C-alpha cells in the first residue's frame, strides 16, 4: 500500500488525497481528506466510497472506464462535508499499483465550493455590468488609463509636476499625449452609433484606438480636469463639453467618468457619454422662438408707435387744413377779407410749428439708441422739461412748483434722455390733472440717501391701486388716446442708467413719481439736510414755499 514515509508526506499536502480500490473501497486518506470529509483515516479505511459519499456506483464505473482509457479522470462531485454542508470537490484520479500485484486509485480532491460560488457571483456581476454597459441609452467606454497613471507617476517622482492643473494648463501638448496614452478597451453599441463612421465595415474596430481623436482641441481642458479628478481621489467627474465622432463631426455631450478605487487599481475606468445635440437643438429652437417673439413685439410696438405718431401729427395738420380752407373762403369772396385771411395764415404758421414740435418730441423719444452717460444736472433736466412743455402747461392752466436742489447734484445719465424722463413724467401729471381748475404740477430734486431723487407730483385723482403694478408696462394706459408708452420709455431710460422709478399716491391726493439715480461722484453722496427733503416729501400738505427753493412758483 503506502509506506509510512509516503503517508507522512501526503499528510502535508493541502489537497485531500485518498487511496481507494478499483471496486470503490477506501484504503486510506490523508489529513486534508479528514478535514474535508470528517472521518479519521483509520475509520474511513475499509468503507465503501459509494456509502460514505452517497455516490451512485455507475458514476464510479464511468469514471473508472475513463481512467483506464486515458490514464486519468477529472471531475467534480458534491460530497457531504465535515461541517455538514455539501462541498463541491474537484477530483483527479490516477491509477497506481497497490503493491500486491493489483491496481489502486489515487484520488486527489480539491474543495472548490467557495471558489465556484465566487466565480458564479463574479459571473453574475460581470453579466449585470455587461448588460448595463450594452443596454444603457448612453454611450459607455471602458478605458485603460494605466499608461497615463504610470506616466504621471514618473513625472511626479522626477519633480516635474508640482500641481496637476497648473501643469496641464501650461502643457496642452502633454494633455494630448495623455489622451493618446488612454486606450479604448471596449465600447457599447451606443458608442458605435454615436462616434462610429456610418457605413464602415467594422465601425466598432475603428473606435478601438486612443481617446485622442474624440476630443476636439477646444475640449482638452475638460479631459485635463477629468484626469485631475481621477488622480486626486475623486470618485467621479462630470462636465458638459463638445466631443468628436471618428468622422470629425462634433457634438455637444455630457461627459461623465467614474473612478471606483477597485477598477482604478487595475488602471481601467468607465466613461459615460450622453449626446446633448437634441437638448442643445431644443434650446436653440427655444432661443430662436424667443427672438422671434421679441421681434414680433417690436413690430407691434412699431405699429403702435406709428399709429401714435400719425395721431399726434394729424391733429395740427387738421387745424392747418381747416384754417387754410377758411382762409380760401375769405379770399374767394367778391371783396376778399384780407384781415381774416391774415389771422388764419398766422394760425396756420403756429399749427405748422406745433406739428414740427410733435415730430421733434417723438424723435427725442425714439432716437439716441446708444445713450452717452455723462454727469449731468438733475436741476437742468427739470428746468428744460418745464420749458419744453410750456404749451401743454399753459393749456392745462397748471401752476408749476419747481423745487431744485441748491447743491445742483449731478447724476450719470444722458442729458437729453434725462430731460425726456422729466418731461414724460410732467406730461403724465398734466394729463392726470386735465380739467382741474387748480391744477398744480410739482417738480423737485433732492438727495435720497446715496442717490439723487427727481420727484414729479400732481394733485390729480391719483392712481387706482389695481393700476399701480402695471403702470410702467408697455401699452398700459388709462387714457383712450394714450399709447401706454410714456412711462414704459421712462422706466427703460432710468434703468439703463442704473436707476429706479416708482409711483405712489400722496396722502393729500394726487400721485407722485420718484426717479432715483446714482450720483455722478461718490464725493457728493452724503445725505442732504432734512428740512428740504421733508418739504419736498410732503408738498401737498404744505403749499408754502420750501425753505430754500431756487426755482420759482409760477402760473403759466
Amino acid at each position: 500500500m503506502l509506506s509510512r514515509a509516503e503517508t507522512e508526506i501526503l499528510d502535508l499536502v493541502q489537497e485531500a488525497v485518498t487511496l481507494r480500490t478499483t471496486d470503490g473501497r477506501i484504503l486510506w486518506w490523508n489529513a486534508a481528506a479528514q478535514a474535508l470529509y470528517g472521518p479519521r483515516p483509520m475509520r474511513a479505511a475499509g468503507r465503501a466510497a459509494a456509502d460514505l459519499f452517497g455516490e451512485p456506483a455507475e458514476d464510479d464505473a464511468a469514471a473508472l472506464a475513463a481512467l483506464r482509457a486515458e490514464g486519468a479522470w477529472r471531475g467534480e462531485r458534491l460530497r457531504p462535508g465535515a461541517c455538514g454542508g455539501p462541498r463541491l470537490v474537484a477530483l483527479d484520479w490516477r491509477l497506481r499499483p497497490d503493491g500486491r500485484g493489483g491496481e489502486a486509485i489515487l484520488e486527489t480532491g480539491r474543495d472548490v465550493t467557495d471558489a465556484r460560488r465566487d466565480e458564479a457571483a463574479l459571473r453574475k456581476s460581470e453579466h449585470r455590468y455587461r448588460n448595463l454597459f450594452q443596454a444603457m441609452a448612453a454611450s459607455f467606454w471602458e478605458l485603460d488609463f494605466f499608461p497615463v497613471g504610470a506616466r504621471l507617476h514618473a513625472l511626479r517622482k522626477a519633480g516635474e509636476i508640482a500641481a496637476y492643473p497648473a501643469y496641464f494648463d501650461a502643457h496642452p501638448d502633454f494633455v494630448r499625449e495623455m489622451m493618446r496614452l488612454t486606450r479604448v478597451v471596449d465600447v457599447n453599441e451606443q458608442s458605435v452609433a454615436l462616434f462610429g463612421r456610418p457605413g464602415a465595415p467594422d465601425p466598432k474596430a475603428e473606435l478601438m484606438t486612443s481617446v485622442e481623436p474624440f476630443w476636439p482641441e477646444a475640449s482638452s481642458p475638460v479631459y485635463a480636469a477629468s484626469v485631475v479628478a481621477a488622480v486626486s481621489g475623486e470618485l467621479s467627474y462630470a462636465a458638459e463639453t463638445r466631443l468628436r465622432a471618428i468622422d470629425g463631426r462634433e457634438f455637444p455631450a455630457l461627459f461623465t467618468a467614474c473612478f471606483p478605487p477597485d477598477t482604478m487599481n487595475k488602471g481601467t475606468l468607465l466613461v459615460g457619454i450622453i449626446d446633448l445635440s437634441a437638448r442643445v437643438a431644443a434650446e436653440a429652437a427655444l432661443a430662436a422662438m424667443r427672438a422671434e417673439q421679441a421681434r414680433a413685439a417690436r413690430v407691434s410696438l412699431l405699429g403702435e408707435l406709428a399709429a401714435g405718431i400719425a395721431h399726434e401729427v394729424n391733429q395740427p395738420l387738421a387745424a392747418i387744413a381747416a384754417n387754410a380752407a377758411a382762409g380760401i373762403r375769405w379770399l374767394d369772396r367778391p371783396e376778399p377779407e384780407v384781415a381774416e385771411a391774415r389771422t388764419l395764415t398766422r394760425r396756420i404758421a403756429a399749427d405748422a410749428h406745433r406739428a414740427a414740435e410733435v415730430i421733434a418730441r417723438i424723435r427725442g423719444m425714439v432716437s439716441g439708441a446708444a445713450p452717452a452717460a455723462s454727469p449731468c444736472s438733475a436741476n437742468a433736466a427739470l428746468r428744460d422739461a418745464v420749458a419744453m412743455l410750456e404749451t401743454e402747461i399753459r393749456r392745462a392752466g397748471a401752476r408749476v412748483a419747481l423745487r431744485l436742489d441748491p447743491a445742483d447734484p449731478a447724476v450719470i445719465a444722458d442729458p437729453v434722455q434725462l430731460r425726456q424722463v422729466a418731461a414724460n413724467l410732467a406730461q403724465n401729471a398734466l394729463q392726470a390733472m386735465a380739467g382741474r381748475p387748480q391744477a398744480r404740477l410739482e417738480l423737485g430734486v433732492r438727495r435720497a440717501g446715496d442717490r439723487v431723487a427727481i420727484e414729479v407730483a400732481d394733485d390729480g385723482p391719483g392712481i387706482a391701486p389695481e393700476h399701480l403694478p402695471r403702470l410702467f408696462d408697455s401699452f398700459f394706459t388709462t387714457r383712450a388716446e394714450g399709447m401706454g408708452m410714456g412711462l414704459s420709455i421712462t422706466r427703460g431710460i432710468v434703468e439703463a442708467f442704473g436707476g429706479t422709478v416708482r409711483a405712489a399716491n400722496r396722502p393729500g391726493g394726487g400721485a407722485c413719481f420718484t426717479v432715483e439715480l446714482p450720483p455722478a461722484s461718490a464725493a457728493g453722496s452724503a445725505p442732504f439736510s432734512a428740512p428740504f427733503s421733508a418739504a419736498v416729501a410732503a408738498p401737498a400738505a404744505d403749499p408754502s414755499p420750501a425753505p430754500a427753493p431756487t426755482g420759482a412758483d409760477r402760473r403759466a
Partner: protein
Amino acid sequence: MTPSSDPAPPLPAPLVAIVDDDPPFLDAMLGLMRALGWRSAGFASAESFLASPARAEAACIVSDLQMPGMDGLALLSRLARDGGAAPVILVTARTEPRLEDEARARGALCLLRKPVAPEALEACLARAMGAGPG
C-alpha cells in the same frame, strides 16, 4: 346785398356745435364755419356741450371721436338715448381702418378723417341741414 323785403323778423341761422379737445383745431373749425357762413359754437369736451343750452339748439354736431372723458361714440349714444338729437358728424385723427363702419353703426351721419377735406365737411353739413347755411 339787397335789403330783405320780408316783413317777418329773420330766423336765426341753424347752429353747428363743434366739440373737440384740441384747442387749435377747435379754433380752426370755428373759423372755417364762419367762413362758410354757418353759425357755430365750440366746446372742449362732450360734457361741456351736453351741459350747455347749445345742446337743444344745435342743428348739427361736429365732434371729435377721441377725447378724454366722454368720447365721440359715447356722446353719440347719449344723444340717441335722449332722443330727438341733431345729426352728428364725427372727426378723428386716428388712422385705423373700419372706424367709419363703427361710427355709422352707432348712428353717426358720417366720419371724417383729420385733416378734414373742406369739401367733404361741406357735403356732410349739407346732408345734415338739408340745405346750405341760412
